């Protein structure tokens, strides 16, 4: 019973990941500028990679026929998921900061640029 629940929850998480990946790829193509496209890419890494990895871990834990190997699979997936969750946002942060500092990415359409104000205040 508990095994079946684990497998179904895991499959649901993988499905969420598929949806996030599709949404991210549409966003990558349709969004207007660099920063919004980067937002779509992050949806792809967190929603489309971390969530399915946790789903895979749950599915592996639910599969009795894998024997002890299910713990290896689950552990590796969870560790990989945590690492991606730590590292991917930093990569995005560094890219966005560098693009903003270099002024290479056009900031259009723009509603509010807090970083620009912060930098202007710091330079005063």
């Amino acid at each position, binding site marked *: 019973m508990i095994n079946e629940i684990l497998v179904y929850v895991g499959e649901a998480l993988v499905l969420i990941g598929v949806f996030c990946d599709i949404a991210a790829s549409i966003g990558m193509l349709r969004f207007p500028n660099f920063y919004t496209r980067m937002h779509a890419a992050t949806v792809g890494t967190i929603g489309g990679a971390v969530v399915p990895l946790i789903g895979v871990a749950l599915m592996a834990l639910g599969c009795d026929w894998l024997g002890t190997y299910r713990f290896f699979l689950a552990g590796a997936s969870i560790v990989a998921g945590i*690492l991606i969750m*730590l*590292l991917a946002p*930093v990569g995005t*942060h*560094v890219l966005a*900061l560098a693009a903003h500092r270099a002024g290479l990415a056009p900031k259009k359409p723009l509603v509010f640029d807090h970083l620009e104000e912060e930098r202007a205040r710091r330079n005063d």
Partner: protein
Amino acid sequence: MKKSEICVIISIVIFIFSLAYITSLGGLGYLPPVDVRKLAQIYLASTYNPYQPTNTSSGYESVTAIIWDFRGLDTFFETAVFYGAIIASVAIYRGVEISSKKKSIGMSPIAKTVTRLSLILIPIVAASIAFHGHLTPGGGFQAGSVATVVIVLSIMVFGLRRLVQKGVTKPKILLLRSLGLIGIGLTAIGLVLAGLVIGVNAYIFQNQAKAMAEISYPMWIDDVLFGGSLLFFNIFEFVAVMAGFTLVLMLFSIEEEEVKKVIK
């Protein structure tokens, strides 16, 4: 849609289908049988064979056994060539000092914090690749390349000067690099030296006992498969490759103005 976009889509589809077709074809003309071939059988039978102690190389991993046992001399020559290339780059950059007086800038605090975390994780992965080289895929060169990521990250995130302030200086890395190569050399002639002392026959690059030379590196220590000379070779190669790549990366990331002061 623009014409160029349509061209890109069509070329991607053609590329994927032709790749799939070539992969399913396997080759042109007569294809050899898919079962295990004679040469592979020889390698598999002699990589780990406790029943024939004179015909084994004491590790489970065939690739490491081939690289450091069956063709050990060749790999030693490769390492020596790599060492020569590093020495050549150091010679070109002779006299160029990395000034550690100026303050390094580095990236934002967010990047620095997470990099500090991954700077602990990467050496663990590298060490596991090096110490498991005779059991699982991996080995010294791969582990050294993984460990070099630490230096790349440190130079990019904290800055080269910070690295030098922390004590990672050119002479120290050169010393580490030389220690790695000396270790490889000593492991290669270790049994010959031991044979001279005891007074028995031995060969260079000998791992396990042979018919005419009965001394060997330890294959098992307690119930852990030690791997004989393979483990030593992997560890020393790990040190040598890591130090070599570190040195070249540090030299390449010195500012052009600093280099131009010396090399005109």
